[in-house]
């Protein structure tokens, strides 16, 4: 079985070499198509990183009535911690709130010390599991109903805008990915059809000496998958070179400028996804051609 597969690989490689020119053109075209997708994924990945940097937006701050005693505060926090998707709930009593404010705005020290009552409100800071934006709203409405909680703040407008934007981006990726997959399938299918055509005499002979359809088809499927894989790998490599030459340089400069803007390359999932898109569309493309022209 393994031996047979090795043999099919050898045949596929031989045939790839034979139709070198057309195969190179196919790989180049797939590379361009997948480069588009790869660039888009790179953009998404960086957007995600930037959003993670500004993740504090995804915390919920629940303000508590002034008449709630300190012991009760802890109870409320405990209750919130027991909710699903809540990572942590931290109590900030009136004094801590004041200290934090003075820490940030030392100029106001005198004015605040001059007051005879602490004007700051106690609150509970809630962090959401996985910083998932989806559960923020749901948890916030639940917290708002707890007795003693006066109001909650979770950057509602920003969150909603973010969710809408993310939805659009997601739809965009699906659309772009499907278009590119279809294009790749079409490309590979055409090339394999041409390869089948130039080798039809050979295929005929394979049939006449007792070759099964699978035996005849397998090298073509391997060829198609290899074309897709090469295209994807090249696209990733080219994107990486581009990334090294331009964006990484900007990273270095931004360190000097003390800016927090950093660029990241594709993560492993993105790379695997691209390779999979290449292999799968190559395989499907060749099977389509075989199906049509060998009636397999």
């Amino acid at each position: 079985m393994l031996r047979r597969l090795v043999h099919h690989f050898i045949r596929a490689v031989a045939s790839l070499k034979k139709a070198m020119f057309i195969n190179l053109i196919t790989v180049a075209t797939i590379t361009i198509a997948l480069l588009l997708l790869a660039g888009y994924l790179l953009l998404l990945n960086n957007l995600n990183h930037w959003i993670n940097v500004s993740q504090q937006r995804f915390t919920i701050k629940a303000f508590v009535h002034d008449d709630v005693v300190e012991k009760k505060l802890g109870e409320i926090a405990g209750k919130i911690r027991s909710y699903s998707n809540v990572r942590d709930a931290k109590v900030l009593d009136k004094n801590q709130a004041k200290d934090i404010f003075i820490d940030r705005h030392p100029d106001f020290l005198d004015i605040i010390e001059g007051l005879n009552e602490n004007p700051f409100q106690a609150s509970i800071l809630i962090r959401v599991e996985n910083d998932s934006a989806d559960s923020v709203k749901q948890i916030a409405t639940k917290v708002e109903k707890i007795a003693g909680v006066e109001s909650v703040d979770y950057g509602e407008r920003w969150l909603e805008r973010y969710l809408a934007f993310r939805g659009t981006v997601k739809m965009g990726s699906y659309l772009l990915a499907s278009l590119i997959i279809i294009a790749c399938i079409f490309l590979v299918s055409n090339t394999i059809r041409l390869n089948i055509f130039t080798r039809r005499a050979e295929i005929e002979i394979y049939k006449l000496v007792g070759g099964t359809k699978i035996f005849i088809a397998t090298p073509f499927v391997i060829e198609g998958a290899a074309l897709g894989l090469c295209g994807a790998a090249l696209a990733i490599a080219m994107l990486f070179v581009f990334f090294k030459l331009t964006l990484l340089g900007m990273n270095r400069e931004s360190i000097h400028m003390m800016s927090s803007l950093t660029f990241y390359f594709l993560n492993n999932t993105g790379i695997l996804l691209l390779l999979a898109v290449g292999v799968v569309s190559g395989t499907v493309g060749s099977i389509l051609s075989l199906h049509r022209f060998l009636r397999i």
Partner: protein
Amino acid sequence: MIQMFHVSKAYSREAYALQDINLKIAKGDFVFVTGPSGAGKTTLLKLIFCEESVTSGQLLVDGRNIARIRASRIPYLRRQIGVVFQDFKLIPTMTVSENVALAMEVVGVYGRKAKRRIAAIVNAVGLGHKMHALPLQLSAGEQQRVAIARALVNDPKILLADEPTGNLDPELTIEIMDLLNFINAKGTTILVASHNKKLVETSGKLVIRLKNGHLEN
């Protein structure tokens, strides 16, 4: 081994290449199929290994009725039958040994075992010194012998040969006939299409005579 009952073959409506053929070839027989050009010799061979389908009638090969064989079974039938084609059907971009190896690859025999077998069979047809030549670098007679080697490499139960000596000089013809006799002596059933009258008549073998798609005797 091969039995035909009222077998007819029409390539197009009304134009019969073979009509109402009845015959029986036993295991181990050596049979010549003869007749003028266009009589249907090649067609008869093509029916036996399913390159063409029977239009009507029953055709039994090794006990199996192949008149209505499923397409997926055809490759397995063909592996039992070695065929020497009238036009050789060698792959021009492959060497002699690669062309012969092809027939072993489809049945899943590779490597050292295949190499040894290929060397033996190519030597047997007298082309040991041209193992790595391409078909176009060979004479017609040499190409024919490559085709014979490929047909025999899997030890088939049946050997079909379409004009296997058509391009050979008398000396080589004798050599090839000796080779076929040797294969036949080991138990392979052989069917040879030939319009070489002298060869057929002096061989002392069974003869099937075709004319215009009909059996003559």
